[in-house]
């Protein structure tokens, strides 16, 4: 029936400690659903978006997922700002059999592959690989690791440790800080004083990224400082109060879109998204909203190709996604790859004069 809407269900960390993820994600979804509807919808049907605020709490995410599936009867889930919330609902999603595109960061979400679960953000695995490659090119082989205690932070830390051997890296210090900590000088001092340390890598996101950068500078540590795509937002640079200078990190092309050459395949998509987001919300883009953009577009693509919202058909089409250009990268999925991005979708950037500078 043409009148029937296509229901998109979502639960996001709109408030709470991870709201810097959920907030732009929600805004992006709202914005583009409206845009798509004004352009006639999908399969001639309007999209209907139902968003619940999980506050980033996995415990709250679970009942919302159940509610979306069995009460709201949505056709697809585009949800889960954090890894924790995503992981908590996976058993439900798998049991119910409904396509689920997560915006959670960690690789564990799709690795091992779960039948119904996809994700759009680059994994920390990719990020760590990218960072290791950059380090190797600078002759760095011994690093000190600092990580926060959130889900993403821990998963990232695990990757750093797991991939180290293969990449010929040695982790000589492994420090963590707590949620809401306001000072990491003790940890950084320890890293600084570890024997043979050549660079520091920080796994984490949110406000802590700036504090780490500030403390790093305050302590006058003079080794290279790496962070992850979790820090890829302008506020990281701004809030670090000068401490971000020289920090290197892998980021989506979206983050440095203005610096991209016109020939870059993502330039067009990313600029359009950036323009629209900034015009509509009046705030600066972050790469997190981009995850939601890609998720929505992937879903729309798959549904359009399938010509139906039948869940199995949409699942099959999602797995057939091929060279889809999103703001996070170019997706090519398969039944064994529910992310579809590779290391190439990251660009390595360095903070220079208060802005991102693309390396090479």
């Amino acid at each position, binding site marked *: 029936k043409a009148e029937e809407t296509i229901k998109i269900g979502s639960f996001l960390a709109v408030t709470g400690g991870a709201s810097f993820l959920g907030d732009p994600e929600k805004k992006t979804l709202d914005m583009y659903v409206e845009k798509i509807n004004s352009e006639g919808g999908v399969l001639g049907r309007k999209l209907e978006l139902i968003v619940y605020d999980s506050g980033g709490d996995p415990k709250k995410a679970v009942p919302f997922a159940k509610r979306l599936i069995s009460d709201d009867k949505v056709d697809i889930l585009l949800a889960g700002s954090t890894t924790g919330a995503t992981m908590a609902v996976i058993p439900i999603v798998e049991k119910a059999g409904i396509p689920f595109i997560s915006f959670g960061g960690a690789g564990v979400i799709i690795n091992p592959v779960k039948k119904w679960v996809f994700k759009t953000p680059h994994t920390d695995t990719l990020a760590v690989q990218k960072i290791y490659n950059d380090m190797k090119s600078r002759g760095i082989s011994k690093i000190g690791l600092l990580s926060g205690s959130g889900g993403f932070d821990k998963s990232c830390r695990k990757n750093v440790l797991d991939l180290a051997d293969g990449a010929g890296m040695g982790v000589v210090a492994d420090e963590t800080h707590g949620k809401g900590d306001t000072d990491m000088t*003790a940890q950084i001092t320890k890293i600084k004083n570890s024997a043979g340390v050549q660079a520091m890598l920080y796994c984490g996101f949110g406000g802590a990224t700036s504090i780490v950068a500030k403390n790093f500078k305050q*302590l006058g540590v003079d080794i290279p400082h790496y962070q992850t795509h979790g820090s890829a937002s302008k506020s990281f640079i701004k809030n670090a109060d000068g401490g971000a200078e020289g920090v290197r990190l892998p980021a989506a092309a979206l983050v440095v879109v203005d610096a991209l050459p016109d020939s870059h395949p993502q330039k067009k998509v990313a600029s359009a998204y950036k323009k629209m987001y900034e015009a509509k919300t009046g705030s600066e883009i972050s790469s997190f909203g981009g995850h939601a953009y890609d998720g929505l577009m992937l879903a729309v693509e798959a549904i359009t190709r399938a010509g139906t919202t039948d869940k199995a058909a949409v699942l099959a089409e999602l797995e057939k996604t091929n060279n889809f250009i999103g703001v996070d990268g170019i997706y090519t999925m398969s039944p064994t790859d529910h992310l579809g991005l590779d290391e190439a979708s990251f660009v390595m950037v360095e903070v220079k004069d208060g802005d991102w500078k693309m390396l090479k």
Partner: protein
Amino acid sequence: MFAEFLQFLFSGITVGAIYALVGLGFAIIYNASNVINFAQGEFVMLGGMGTVFFIGLGLPMPLAVLLAVSLTVIVGFGLERFAVEPARDAPIVTLIIITIGASIFLRGAAQLVWDRNFHSVASFSGSDPIMIGGASILPQSLWILGCTVVIVIALHMFFNHSMTGKSIIATSHNPLAAKLMGINTSMVLLMSFGLSALLGASAGILIAPISLTYTGVGIMLGLKGFCAAVLGGLGKPMGAIAGGLLVGISEAMTAGYISSAYKDAVAFIIILAVLFLMPNGLFGGRGTERV
């Protein structure tokens, strides 16, 4: 080696002073009303976020600070009048729940009015670290320490040597008798919430350059501030300072020498150990209940 220790110490003192300032806010309200105000962390948030907001409007820093503090004090008054006063003689837990409700309410309101991003506030006097014995400390940390010392001395004088201060304490111990002495107890309560809000807001502004600020900043700080206040012995300004520093330093030392993964746990274990040995905190003294 010593430089490392010194660095941990500086780090601990900085964080500890922040906890202490928040803890002081708990102490003041407790002194007047025996209420533990779990919305204290939101005062800290309002101070910081308010300053960011007013600076964003293009106002100069001092004016923004003034307005942010005033805003917080007004919220403090409102909290007392509309949430705490009507439930004055309710049991401890009920009041805890009310103030937790208030903190959720205030956080929700702040998120609605402002955004949910992290913001920084410029340091008061530059951000070039000062080196002492091979360890570095930020000028802002010295600001925090300085203000903490001034505030605690002022509070100590106020509570122990001024009639108004004494009337606040008297009100908390025996509101009926306080009324019979001619103390306007409802005014005392109002003032104590205002004072505590003022302190919380100041803490929020002082630490914003170090810790960044956002609408959720009050949760963890409020909790740690509560630890500081209890550890030192409730209602004792000096105790809150000692408690804050103890928590801060033990966190930093644990992170430095034992395990950063368990630094929060160690801090709490120290608190538990202290309470087990001294059930009324470090400076709480003995109970005075007689039968």
